[in-house]
């Protein structure tokens, strides 16, 4: 339900001032027609009080029942009815109070049509303003709801994208731990710890959305250590990052999926030992991360920015509204993924 315009203090003051003006106007007009001060004030008061009551009725009524566009003519009917009521009450009250004053009664009868049309106009105005107000409120509330829903959906999607965890990774890591428990229990313990720290990182909440490059690389290191235990000597990694870049910011958990993609792509596309490298650099106002992995150009055909990078693409789009932040290139047997993160 929309809030009434009278719930806003500013509008309450305007409303009161308008009626005061109308009242004063009414009194002076009657004085001009030669009525005594007391009669003019009383006549004005009766008329204005009745009109105020009716306009409050109109405002309240429209708050609960706002006619649809094609039913606006209902309002006209209401307007006529309410005007009729006001005029009827005014007539009954004033004619009873001034029953003996023939001159006044004759004046009142003469002015009846003028009174009716003025009251009709005033009530019409109030009605029109109310309809416009409530329609506007309803629309802006709808807009707000839509924006809220969009924001929620965006947050949920970002959360999901950040949280994406490959079941392969989890189960294979557990399998490696299972093997280590028998043979090298100390290493098993260490890997349980690393895996736990890694998993804790993936379920971090919204408030840690942005992290420094240093934090992100520490987290990445956890992941890489686990992968190295899994794949043994086949996997080696190289991270190049100048200490001056440590404080640059990026969305949390952005690099791990990129690295995971490179590892998967590299490890499953060749049977040899592979090296995955990550390089961080600053270009203009961007943090630029370059990840490379070997691949076999004869058997894999890179398609667009494919190879599991869609979720990174989507995430950066949701955060920056740009689609040019992820790019890939392949040269000979090296596949390169480049990610730009604008610094604010």
């Amino acid at each position, binding site marked *: 339900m929309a809030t009434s315009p009278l719930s806003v203090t500013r509008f309450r003051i305007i409303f009161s001032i308008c009626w005061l003006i109308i009242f004063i106007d009414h009194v002076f007009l009657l004085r001009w027609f030669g009525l005594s001060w007391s009669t003019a004030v009383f006549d004005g008061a009766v008329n204005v009080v009745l009109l105020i009551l009716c306009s409050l009725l109109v405002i309240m009524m429209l708050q609960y029942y706002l006619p649809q566009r094609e039913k606006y003519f209902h309002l006209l009917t209401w307007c006529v009815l309410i005007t009729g009521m006001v005029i009827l009450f005014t007539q009954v009250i004033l004619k009873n109070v001034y029953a003996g004053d023939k001159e006044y009664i004759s004046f009142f009868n003469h002015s009846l049509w003028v009174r009716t049309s003025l009251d009709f106009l005033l009530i019409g105005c109030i009605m029109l303003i109310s309809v416009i107000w409530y329609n506007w409120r309803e629309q802006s509330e709808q807009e707000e709801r839509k924006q809220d829903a969009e924001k929620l959906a965006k947050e949920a999607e970002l959360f999901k994208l950040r949280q994406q965890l490959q079941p392969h990774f989890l189960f*294979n890591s557990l399998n*490696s731990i299972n*093997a280590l428990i028998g043979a090298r229990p100390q290493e098993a313990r260490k890997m349980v710890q690393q895996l736990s720290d890694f998993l804790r990182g993936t379920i971090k909440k919204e408030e840690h959305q942005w992290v420094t490059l240093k934090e992100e690389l520490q987290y990445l290191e956890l992941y890489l250590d686990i992968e190295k235990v899994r794949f043994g000597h086949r996997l080696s990694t190289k991270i190049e990052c100048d200490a001056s870049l440590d404080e640059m910011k990026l969305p949390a958990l952005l690099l791990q999926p990129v690295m995971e993609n490179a590892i998967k792509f590299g*490890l*499953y596309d060749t049977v040899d030992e592979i090296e995955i490298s990550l390089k961080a650099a600053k270009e203009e106002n961007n943090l630029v991360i370059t990840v490379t992995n070997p691949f076999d150009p004869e058997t894999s055909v890179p398609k667009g920015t494919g190879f599991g990078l869609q979720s990174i693409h989507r995430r950066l789009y949701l955060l920056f509204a740009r689609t040019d932040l992820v790019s890939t290139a392949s040269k000979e047997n090296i596949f390169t993924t480049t990610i730009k993160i604008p610094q604010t």
Partner: protein
Amino acid sequence: MSGKVIIIDDEPLARSIVVEYLQHFPDLTVAQVCSNGFEGVKAIQQYKPDLIILDIQMPKINGFEMLELIENPPAVIFATAFDEYAIKAFEAHAIDYLLKPFNQDRFEKAIKKWRDQKNNAAGEKQTRQLLDDVSLTAPQNERIVIKDGSKIKIIPIQEVHYLEAADDFVKVFTKEGYFLKNKTMSHFEQVLDPTQFVRSHRSYIVNLQQITRIDPYEKDNHVAILRSGAKVPVSRTGYPRLKSILGL
């Protein structure tokens, strides 16, 4: 009842845990441990094992593709972490599948199951059936893995010009000539992307990207001329099919 076992898995610790579990079976010997499908094919030919314990996701060729390259595949127990597309097929036809991580008890059950089935000789047939089922799923529809003498060839599907039926085999034509694959035409018709590959003739499936023109040939027939210059017959029923997909 003794037996030779080969373990094929790309993760060293995953191999070592299977070796460890196998120590409880003194009659089973580990002939070799392999870290990928290529090594696996070689080792299977060399040792003719009674059982292989096989991972699915491996470098270059996956476990299913490796099995396709072996003429008489031995009994297979799959050991895999999680395979969204294969689990169903497993349930129907594999001797057993072990979901990593698995414990000694579970492993022993799988071995017992294999021993029970070995007696009724259903193993090999089951493995074949399994391969037929899983070969309908990704990534088997993105590439074709073929054994060419002692070499293993991986052909990305886009590089296939056309397929021709040849008895029990299918000839897969590429720019390097043809390779034989022991599958049926109807198998490829099911697996290949129907917007890219069309069965133009009872014995031919053609890659649309390769066609440069279609000429009439004899009275009711047509022939598709490919970029490579090869001519692929188009039958009376194949012609309207080809035309509708090409939007003619």
